[in-house]
């Protein structure tokens, strides 16, 4: 019998912004919502992504996004060191992209064989980072 698949989800900036969209027929928002439904592991947003996307959890308009993506992945001392390490390997990656890769490593640390989906519009840089992280990443274009 196949092992039950575990799929985590990490949102990048554009995905975080799309989730807050109130425009009818927003196809990017639909993709983000589908990814959240498909994830049966942790669904997180790195704190640096929230800053870039302007997602303040205490804002009234953030209630829905808060309920669908309740967990932040902060950048502590150890994670910052890891981000520096990854950025040296992929200099073209932005600071925020690097924190997305670090978050992917953090969320999947407890489950062997888990997949971490990263939903991003910056596929090239995240894909380059995925080659260096210690988890199986599925980079999905938004």
């Amino acid at each position, binding site marked *: 019998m196949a092992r039950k*698949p575990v799929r985590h989800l990490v949102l990048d900036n554009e995905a975080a912004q799309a989730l807050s969209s109130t425009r*009818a*027929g927003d196809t990017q*928002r639909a993709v983000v919502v*589908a990814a959240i439904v*498909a*994830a*049966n592991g942790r669904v997180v947003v790195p704190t640096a992504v929230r800053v870039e996307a302007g997602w303040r959890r205490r804002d009234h308009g953030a209630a829905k996004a808060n309920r669908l993506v309740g967990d932040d992945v902060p950048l502590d001392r150890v994670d910052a060191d890891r981000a520096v390490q990854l950025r040296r390997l992929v200099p073209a990656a932005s600071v925020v992209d690097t924190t997305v890769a670090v978050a992917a490593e953090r969320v999947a640390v407890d489950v062997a064989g888990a997949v971490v*989906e990263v939903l991003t519009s910056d596929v090239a840089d995240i894909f380059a980072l995925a080659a260096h992280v210690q988890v*199986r990443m599925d980079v999905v274009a938004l």
Partner: protein
Amino acid sequence: MDESFTAAANRALEERIREFARQRAFAAHFDRFPEDRPRLAAVALRRVGRTGHPAAGHVHVVEAVAEWIEAREPDWVVHAADETADHVLRYVEMIVAGVGIRPTSVA
């Protein structure tokens, strides 16, 4: 493991409340934006992406099973998204493994 019954109860309650809030958020979202409601087959296939699960190689079977379940449980995405996607994958795994199919007799 939790260190006490109280810790276990608190953790279970917190998880249940978070799940309830998530369900309510999905329900409100799909009421407002029905076009965002995903197809069950798409969710099941996305769940197995890069996992090596046998369903990933049998898209047409996933489509058929998901369509069958979706017709019977139209509100799956609000009330039981995780479980319903799991059911699809389990049924596909059974079909692909040949469970319930009588072997062809050899003369």
